[in-house]
């Protein structure tokens, strides 16, 4: 700002009985912000300490004090010098610079701050126009396990069926843990410029924490004997945890893994032997559907912009298949538990029905994967082949 002559009073500020122990500086700053450097301000008021307090305030804030008046200091606008807008509020940039840091999109960023590194700072890598809508849906869909789940509903009388529930829940918990850890690891790498994506991932992590919690609680309800966590299942999940690339991890976890889980959770809900199991699988499934939708949405966009991504994703499935070829895949105990759940008891005729239901579940899972791969632009024959290479562990 240009300097004004320090002779004439250009502004008179009436403070009444307000002192600096009650916020007088807020009123003064309001006036000062509109004035040029050197503008003379006269301050009037009846607070007994006004004069010495005004003097101290002027000295501390770079204004020149002279006997109840002060000339506005030269540094009124310094914070705006070199400041730049952090993009526009309603549009994301192709790549967000580190020095915009944690600032809200569209605000002015004072120069000279830190320049943190966010590895996921590129629009084409992470953005989805759907993110905002999915986040709002997620907020509206949050549920409280204390009120949404009938924890006191009767449990299955048949100990074999209860054991099948416990085994299934044990399996679900470790899968939910993987689905929590993977987005949590990327969450801190997303540049805050892409806040909507950050928020979707954050709520996804919170969803998975709740799922792991309710499945564990269900597993312990009847205090049945502990179930088994299979080494093959954990090896399969480990490949998700080890995946360093956001697009690939998101593809394997959300599109293929959680996509497959939509079928699994629908299956458990359908054959649930008690109301509690039915409720938690129904509610978890609604959350998972959102996670799948976000994964599909940002990868669909990404594939359109960068068709070579499809090749990377296909290779990721193949690599994972090779890595897991020597492992057992799905824990036998989990497969058997699903059969018993569908059978409702271990009577041979019922088991035969249960067996057929699980076969049908697996076909349903494969069909779902083919459809989702198709949505990402994979040709039908490739989608068919890749869908069958997915881990036998479901997630």
């Amino acid at each position, binding site marked *: 700002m240009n300097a004004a002559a320090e002779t004439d009073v250009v502004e008179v500020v009436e403070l009444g009985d307000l002192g600096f*122990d*009650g916020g007088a500086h807020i009123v003064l700053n309001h006036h000062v912000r509109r004035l040029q450097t050197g503008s003379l301000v006269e301050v009037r008021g009846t607070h007994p*300490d006004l004069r*010495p307090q005004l003097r101290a*305030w002027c*000295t501390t804030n770079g204004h020149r004090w002279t006997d109840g008046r002060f000339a506005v*200091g*030269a*540094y009124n606008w310094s*914070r705006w010098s070199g400041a730049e807008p952090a993009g526009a509020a309603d549009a994301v940039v192709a790549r967000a610079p580190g020095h915009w840091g944690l600032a809200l999109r569209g605000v002015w960023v004072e120069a000279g701050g830190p320049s943190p590194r966010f590895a996921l700072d590129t629009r084409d890598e992470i953005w989805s126009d759907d993110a905002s809508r999915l986040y709002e849906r997620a907020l509206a869909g949050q549920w409280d396990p204390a009120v949404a789940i009938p924890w006191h509903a009767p449990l299955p009388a048949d100990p074999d069926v209860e054991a099948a529930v416990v085994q299934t829940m044990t399996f679900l918990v470790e899968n939910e843990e993987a689905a929590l850890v993977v987005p949590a690891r990327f969450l801190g790498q997303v540049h805050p410029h892409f806040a909507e994506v950050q928020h979707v991932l954050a709520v996804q992590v919170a969803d998975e924490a709740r799922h792991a919690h309710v499945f564990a609680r269900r597993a312990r309800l009847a205090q049945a004997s502990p179930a088994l966590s299979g080494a093959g299942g954990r090896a399969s999940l480990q490949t998700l945890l080890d995946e360093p690339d956001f697009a690939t991890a998101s593809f394997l976890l959300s599109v293929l893994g959680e996509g497959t889980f939509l079928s699994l959770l629908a299956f458990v809900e359908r054959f649930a032997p008690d109301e509690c199991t039915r409720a938690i699988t129904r509610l978890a499934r609604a959350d998972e559907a959102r996670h799948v939708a976000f994964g599909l949405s940002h990868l669909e966009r990404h594939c359109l912009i960068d068709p070579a991504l499809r090749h990377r994703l296909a290779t990721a499935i193949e690599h994972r298949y090779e890595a897991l070829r020597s492992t057992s895949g799905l824990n036998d105990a989990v497969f058997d538990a699903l059969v018993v759940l569908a059978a409702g008891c271990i009577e041979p005729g019922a088991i035969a029905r249960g067996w057929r239901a699980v076969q049908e579940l697996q076909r349903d899972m494969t069909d779902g994967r083919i459809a989702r791969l198709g949505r990402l632009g994979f040709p039908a024959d490739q989608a068919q082949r890749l869908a069958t290479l997915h881990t036998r562990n479901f997630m």
Partner: protein
Amino acid sequence: MNDQPFVLGAVAYAPKVVTIWEGFRDWFASEGFAFDVVLYSNYERQVDDLMAGRIDVAWNSPLAWVRARRLAAAAGRTVSAPVMRDTDQDLTSVVVVVGDSDLASIGDLAGGRVAVGAIDSPQSRLIPLGHLAAAGLDLGRSVEVVGFDVMVGKHGDHVGGERDAVAALLDGEVNAACIIGANQLAFAQEGMIKPGAVRILTETAPYDHCVFTVVDDAVDATTVERFSDLLLSMSFDDPAVRGLLEMEGLREWRPGRTSGFDQLERAVDLLGLYDERGRIVDPNYRP
């Protein structure tokens, strides 16, 4: 570039001092001026080292300036103050009482208790007590002076002593407290002083605060001039230094002046902290 780094002494009264001077050191280097910093735990050792030539310039409190000047004069030498902060010029201290106190003048403090900061604080002890004495108050006889010694040796740079003095006032343990004017505002802003809870009984005359200090016969005048010019060229508009200037509490560096230390010189004599040769003579002062 100067061959040997120009070495500054600064007292580390808070962790931010490291950040500030590391930052300035880098900035000086970027300007082609070799510069280094030695941090001290107290001003007395810093001044001793300045006089002994172990540092080239001291970032001195006003009290450290007074001692350096006296030590130099006793040795037939002179000291100069090339640069200071804008926020170090024309400060005042205030003696505050509780808002509903019936004390109306300095004389009314007779028979009462007055809280001050650290024994070596110019703004919270030496200058305001000198002000009260000049107004006729018989310190130690008609009024009891209650000291709050926080970080002695740091010449009151740490705000703790003043904070304790105000707390004692608000708790009703003393009748008045001596603080620098800006801290009345700071304590109000942080909520320690509620609106109207204290009022100013009296204000000192203006005085100056910190100054860079050099011993004239110990440094190369050209190097001091370069150091000063670089400081004076720093702009609050420059984001590269704005954060450092803010931490150091200034908007701009100004040419130094030594006209603002008379009150403090008189108070040091009155309260017997140093003798005229700069020796520490107050037995209660142990930095």
